[in-house]
């Protein structure tokens, strides 16, 4: 039942008297005008529990009637049932024993929330054909913003017909409602009213007769409202706003306002999640990694075609080699940046596969992509002089080195503004290309002082007592430079640094612990080499 009414109905919902009524009404008008730019189509799926289990129930669906039991109550309460069971008197909420007494041949299935969510996901995927703005409303509804799609699909009526056809083709029961606000659409759909409303100012009056159940407010609040004599939304709207918000949660009043278009109702957009999964059975089982690689590469080509068609890339790829007895061998490839080229993935795959030990011959290969991500598309130049300028070859180099040497073996450097020499730098393992334009340098506390090009991982104790020796007696050239810092993180140091030279001409950075309370001046340590 679709009714497009253009009759103006005086709003039944009045704001409480406020000091500046004119300003309030002006604000109301602007909000109303803004909200009417949207049209939300709610798809309520009343039989989602049953329909999500249909493939499992299908073989005997005609033979026996089906009831789904809830896991929360030890599987003793019916939470959904099909039509034949309902005709026999089984209702949701009934104890399973009573249902079985009514219908001895009742087939029971456990509820599966994961499959319900998957069904909802499938409906959202279906909705994406009609509009890019799709939002999930778990557990049993999907919202589509269709204002911008009306002209393309030939108006609201035609669009609703097409959505309904799509749902029927997938074997999903759906109740559709179209209003300017998402919440109102949802409530109408839950109430089973297939309405189509285009005007915001009609919303409040049309919502008024809806029962309170559609809001899915907490049981206690609904009970309290019923004892107050409020049985529908109109009753709620007539209650004084401040009292209503004080007595119940403020959330409820906000929901009422959102439903009637008084305040905006932003929604989280649904994003289609896509993965690539493919499998190839190997007819003679393969034990040789070289032949296995040749046999796996067609899958990689498939993946890259899949990525290219979507203009996307992946950062992780998972190979799985299936054996006859042994558990599957997994090979996970990670890339420092999103990739979409087969050659690049193949390079890393080759390196990793060469080092892989297979417990048994491989029967089948399975390739699964990680989440698809945006592929950076660098602007191509007509006259590319050098790949070095763009730095585009660096991530590839890093991947190739890491594939063979391990992820820890390759790193970059970054400066840390710190006085302690060992804390003044950090290895950079996460990859992101530095901006080409030079960013302002972090303030360097050691500016103006000499630092060695090599630093030892750990200060090395020097022999020789007061006259330190390192391949010969050291001669102190410059110093001391006192560095005393770090008391706040437990790694405090108090050292006098000197630049020293040994007879071979090696310049060294040495230090001596400063005498502090409770400690005497320590021995000499080597901390760096000037190179």
């Amino acid at each position, binding site marked *: 039942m679709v009714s497009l009414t253009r009759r103006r109905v005086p709003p039944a919902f009045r704001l409480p008297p406020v000091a500046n009524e004119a300003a309030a009404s002006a604000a109301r008008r602007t909000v109303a005008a803004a909200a009417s730019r949207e049209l939300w189509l709610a798809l309520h799926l009343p039989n989602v529990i049953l329909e999500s289990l249909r493939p499992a129930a299908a073989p005997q669906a005609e033979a026996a009637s089906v009831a789904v039991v809830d896991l929360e109550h030890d599987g003793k309460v019916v939470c959904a049932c099909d039509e034949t069971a309902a005709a026999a008197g089984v209702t949701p909420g009934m104890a399973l024993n009573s249902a079985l007494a009514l219908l001895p041949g009742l087939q029971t299935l456990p509820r599966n929330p994961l499959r319900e969510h998957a069904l909802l996901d499938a409906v959202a995927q279906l909705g994406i054909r009609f509009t890019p703005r799709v939002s999930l409303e778990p557990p049993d509804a999907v919202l589509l913003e269709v204002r911008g799609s009306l002209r393309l699909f030939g108006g609201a009526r035609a669009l609703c017909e097409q959505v309904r056809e799509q749902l029927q083709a997938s074997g999903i029961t759906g109740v559709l409602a179209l209003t300017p606000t998402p919440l109102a659409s949802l409530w109408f759909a839950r109430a089973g009213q297939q309405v189509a409303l285009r005007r915001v100012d009609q919303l409040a009056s049309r919502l008024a007769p809806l029962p309170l159940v559609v809001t899915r407010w907490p049981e206690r609040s609904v009970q309290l409202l019923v004892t107050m004599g409020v049985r529908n939304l109109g009753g709620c709207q007539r209650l004084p706003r401040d009292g209503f918000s004080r007595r119940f949660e403020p959330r409820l009043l906000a929901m009422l306002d959102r439903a009637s278009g008084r305040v905006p109702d932003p929604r989280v957009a649904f994003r289609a999640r896509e993965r690539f999964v493919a499998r190839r059975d190997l007819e003679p089982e393969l034990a040789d990694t070289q032949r296995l690689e040749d046999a796996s590469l067609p899958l990689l080509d498939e993946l890259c075609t899949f990525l290219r068609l979507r203009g996307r890339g992946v950062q992780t790829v998972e190979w799985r080699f299936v054996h006859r007895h042994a558990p599957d061998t997994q090979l996970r490839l990670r890339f420092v940046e999103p990739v979409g080229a087969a050659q690049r993935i193949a390079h890393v795959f080759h390196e990793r596969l060469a080092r892989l030990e297979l417990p048994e011959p491989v029967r089948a290969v399975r390739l699964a992509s990680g989440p698809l991500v945006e592929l950076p598309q660098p602007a191509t130049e007509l006259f590319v002089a050098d790949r070095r*300028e763009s*730095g585009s070859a660096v991530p590839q*180099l890093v991947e*190739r*080195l890491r594939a063979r040497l391990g992820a820890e073996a390759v790193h*970059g450097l*970054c400066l840390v503004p710190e006085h302690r020499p060992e804390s003044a730098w950090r290895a950079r393992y996460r990859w992101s290309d530095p901006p080409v334009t030079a960013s302002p340098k972090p303030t360097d506390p050691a500016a103006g*002082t000499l630092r060695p090009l090599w630093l030892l991982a750990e200060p090395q104790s020097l022999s020789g007592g007061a006259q330190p020796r390192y391949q010969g007696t050291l001669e102190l050239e410059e110093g001391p430079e006192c560095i005393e810092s770090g008391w706040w993180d437990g790694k405090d140091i108090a050292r006098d640094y000197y630049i020293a030279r040994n007879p071979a001409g090696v310049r060294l950075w040495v230090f001596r612990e400063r005498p502090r309370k409770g400690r005497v001046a320590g021995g000499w340590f080597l901390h760096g080499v*000037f190179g």
Partner: protein
Amino acid sequence: MPLDDLLRQHPALWRAREQGGAGSAPPGLPTGFAALDRCLPGGGWPQQGLVEILTDRHGIGELSLLMPALATLCRGAEVPGSTGGWLAWVAPPYQPYAPALSAAGIDVRRVLVVRASLPAEWAMEQALRSEACSAVLGWANPSDLTVLRRLQLAAEQARCLAVLFRPAKAGEHPSPAVLRIELQGSPAGLQARIVKSRGGRPVCVQLGHLGAPWQAGPQPLQRAQFARS
């Protein structure tokens, strides 16, 4: 036409006493040390082919010798239209210290450190072949001449500064490198002996104390003391 001019026109002939001139050698990357530049064909580090630095000790100034050239390569990155890229350090003996590199004029964000345990030559060759780096420094001592030839070939094609640090003993054995310099430290300063130079001749250069050549003059020591209150 005088004989001298005729000889000069012939591309296959070079004169031993005209080193560092505009001979057949391609222009090199200035080392930052005039005395050394004069002795090198092309007037600087060769940018095609492998450079071998032979030294037994770390810390006599072998790295300071390269710093001006590396800083030039890094500055090239800021100028649009020039080759400027990453510096790869393959299997360094110690940790390259970022603050000192930064003080020497090197962009530490474009430094790549590879801690290769065994196949350092392989990692170095990969870095050269990737065309991603404008300088590749490696610390390894490949005993196999084929490995050295592969490195030399990769360095020849990569058009970047490729430096291999080897122990001084390796100088006794032949190498396909374009330039081999043996460094010796002494209290008087650094001494560089050019063992082999394609298009040049063996010569010995006194470089003195390299210290920190990127610094204009002696810097007053600053006291950075943060006593706990």
